[in-house]
C-alpha cells in the first residue's frame, strides 16, 4: 500500500464526508474559490468589455491622425495626459488603436476557434465513432497537418487566400483542427472501453445512441478546457500572423501584431509603441490561459494537487 493510498484511506475515515454533487457543480464551486481562476476571469471580462465598448472608450477613431505633422522618426511623443499611450509613428492615438485592436483580436480568436473546433470535433467524432478506415484516413490527414509547424501552416494558407482577416481566421482554425480532432477521438476511444459503455451495450442500447448519448457528453469538459486554452493561443497566433504582415489588407485597421511590427524601427526612440500593444496581447492571452488551466484542474481530479 502506497503512502498516498494510506492517506486516502485515513481521509475516508473522516466523519461527514463531503457529498459530491455533479462534476460540473463541484468544478464550479472550486473555481469560484480559486484566486487564479478569478484573476483569469477578470482579465477576460476586461478584454471583452474593452472590445465591445471600444467606440465609447477610444477618444479617437483608430485611423485618425491627431498628431499628424508633428511626428518625426526621432520624435514620437510617449504617454501624456492627452494621449494616454502616446502617439504612433503616423501620429495616431496609440490608446485608441490598442482599444480598437481588442475588437480585431477577439473577433479573430473567437471565429477561428469556432471554425477550428467545429471541423476538428467533426473529424474526431467520425474517427472515434466509426473507427476502421474512416479513422485511418482522418488520422493520416491529421498527421499531415501536424507535420507542418503551426505558424508555417497558417502562412501557407494565408498566402493562398491573400492577406485578409478571413484568411487569418481560416489559417488559425487550420492549426487547431488537428488538436480538437485528436482530443475528441482519444476521448471516445478511451470511453468506448469504459464500464458504463459496456454496460449500455450489454443492455442492447444501439451504438449510435451510446455515442451520442453517453460518450459525447462525457467528452465535453476536456473540449471546454482545450477551447479556453486555444483561445489564448489563437489570440497570440493572430498577432503573430499580423506581425508577419499577413493580417488585414487595410493597414488602417488596428491589429496588435502589426502595431508591434511597424514599431520595430522606432524601438529605441519610442518603446511605448511596443509596450502597449504587447501588454494588450499578454492580458488577453493570460486571461484565457489562467482560466483554462484552472478549469482543467477543477474538472480533472488527476490535476488536483
Amino acid at each position, binding site marked *: 500500500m502506497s503512502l498516498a493510498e494510506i492517506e486516502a*484511506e485515513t481521509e475516508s475515515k473522516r466523519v461527514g464526508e463531503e457529498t459530491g454533487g455533479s462534476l460540473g457543480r463541484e468544478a464550479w464551486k472550486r473555481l469560484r474559490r480559486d484566486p487564479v481562476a478569478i484573476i483569469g476571469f477578470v482579465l477576460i471580462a476586461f478584454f471583452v468589455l474593452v472590445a465591445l465598448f471600444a467606440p465609447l472608450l477610444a477618444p479617437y477613431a483608430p485611423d485618425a491622425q491627431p498628431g499628424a505633422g508633428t511626428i518625426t522618426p526621432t520624435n514620437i511623443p510617449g504617454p501624456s495626459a492627452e494621449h494616454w499611450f502616446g502617439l504612433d509613428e503616423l501620429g495616431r492615438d496609440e490608446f485608441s488603436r490598442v482599444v480598437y485592436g481588442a475588437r480585431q483580436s477577439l473577433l479573430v480568436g473567437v471565429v477561428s476557434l469556432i471554425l477550428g473546433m467545429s471541423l476538428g470535433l467533426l473529424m474526431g467524432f467520425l474517427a472515434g465513432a466509426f473507427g476502421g478506415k474512416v479513422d485511418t484516413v482522418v488520422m493520416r490527414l491529421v498527421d499531415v497537418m501536424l507535420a507542418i509547424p503551426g505558424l508555417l501552416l497558417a502562412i501557407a494558407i494565408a498566402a493562398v487566400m491573400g492577406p485578409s482577416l478571413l484568411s487569418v481566421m481560416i489559417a488559425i482554425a487550420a492549426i487547431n483542427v488537428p488538436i480538437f480532432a485528436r482530443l475528441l477521438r482519444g476521448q471516445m476511444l478511451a470511453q468506448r472501453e469504459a464500464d458504463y459503455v459496456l454496460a449500455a451495450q450489454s443492455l442492447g442500447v444501439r451504438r449510435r445512441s451510446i455515442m451520442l448519448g453517453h460518450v459525447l457528453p462525457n467528452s465535453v469538459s476536456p473540449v471546454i478546457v482545450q477551447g479556453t486554452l486555444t483561445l489564448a493561443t489563437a489570440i497570440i497566433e493572430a498577432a503573430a500572423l499580423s506581425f508577419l504582415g499577413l493580417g488585414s489588407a487595410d493597414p488602417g485597421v488596428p491589429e496588435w501584431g502589426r502595431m508591434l511590427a511597424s514599431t520595430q524601427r522606432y524601438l529605441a526612440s519610442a518603446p511605448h509603441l511596443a509596450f502597449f500593444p504587447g501588454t494588450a496581447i499578454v492580458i488577453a492571452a493570460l486571461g484565457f490561459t489562467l482560466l483554462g488551466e484552472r478549469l482543467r484542474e477543477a474538472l480533472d481530479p488527476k490535476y488536483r494537487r
Partner: protein
Amino acid sequence: MTAATALLLDVRDLSVTFTRRDRRDVRAVDGVSFDVRQGETVGLVGESGSGKSVTALAVMGLLPDRGVLVDGQVHFDDDDLLTLPRDRMRDIRGRDIAMVFQDPMSSLNPVVPIGVQVTEVLVRHRDMHGEAAREEAAELLRRVGIPDPVRRLKDYPHQLSGGMRQRALISMALACRPRLLIADEPTTALDVTIQAQILELLKELVSDSGTALVLITHDLGVVAGLCDTVHVMYSGRVVESAPRRELFADPRHPYTGGLLGSVPRLDSPRGEPLRPIPGSPTDTLPWAEACAFAPRCAHRIGACTGQPPPLEVTGDRSLRCVNPLAEGEASPNPAVAPPASVPPALEEEPT
C-alpha cells in the same frame, strides 16, 4: 522464543497524525507500543486502515516531512529512531533495518536494471564495488531462489514475474544481513501459489540469518505459519497482543475473534458459513471516547462507549476490551489449525 534474548526494537506510545490544511487532523496511529526481540518474528495484524503500515513507515523514518506529526519513541540499539539525525537514519536503513513492500511491481524502479538496484545497497552500506559487488549481487539473487542470477542482473523489473520481483526485493532488503526486517504485506499482491513460496522463503532466510521479522498483514493465515507474537491492531491502536498459539487457541478481543471467524479453515465443519465482521473499518468511534470497534462489535455492552477501554496486561498477553470473549467462545475448534491458504510446509515449528 525465550525471554532471555535481548530486546532489539522497542516501540513506545507511537502516534502518527496526518495534518492537512483546511481539514481535520487524522490520527492514523494512536499510542502503539510493542517490542521485538532478536531473531523474533512479530506479526502486526489488522484490516487496511488500522495503522499497521503507517506504524512501519514511522519506524523506518519514511513518512513525509510535512503534514505528519510523529510522537513517542522507537528505540533501536541505544538510539531513538524518531529523533535520530537524518544522515544517521540513512546509515541504519537498509543496513540494520530493512523493509519489503507490498507491490513488487511498483516498488522496483522500472528503468534501472535489477542488478544495479541490488548492488547500490552493497555500494552504499558494504563498501563493495565493481565486479565484487556484482558477484555478491548474483549470489544474493541466487540465495532468494532466482534462477540464472548472473543473467538476471541485466534484466529490468518488467522482464520478471511478480514472484521473482518480490524475491529480488527481498534480496535487496537482506543484502546487508539486517538485524530487523519489516515486511509490509509482502504476499498480498501475489498469486496464491506464489504467496506460499515467498512466505517459505522469508521464514527460511530470517531463521538462517537470525534476522528479526516484523510481518505486517491483514491475513491471519500468514501469521499462523510464521509469527511468534501477534499484535492485532484496530483503528490505530493495538487491541490485543499474545503469543501466536494462545491467540489462535483463545482469542479474547471480539475483533480478533471476528478476524479468525472470517478466515476459511480446513477443519471447520462442512457447510459452516464464514462469519465476516459486519460493517467496514471506516465505522469507528474516536478512541478518546469509546472503543473504536464498538459500532461493529457483537459483544458490545454499555461500558464500551463513554470512556476509552483500558489496556489490561496479564502475563505475556494484553487486551484492550471491557467485555472480552470467554475462553473458547470464538473458535469452534480450540486447536491451532492453520487456515487453508497456508500449505502444510508452513506448519513446521519455527526453530
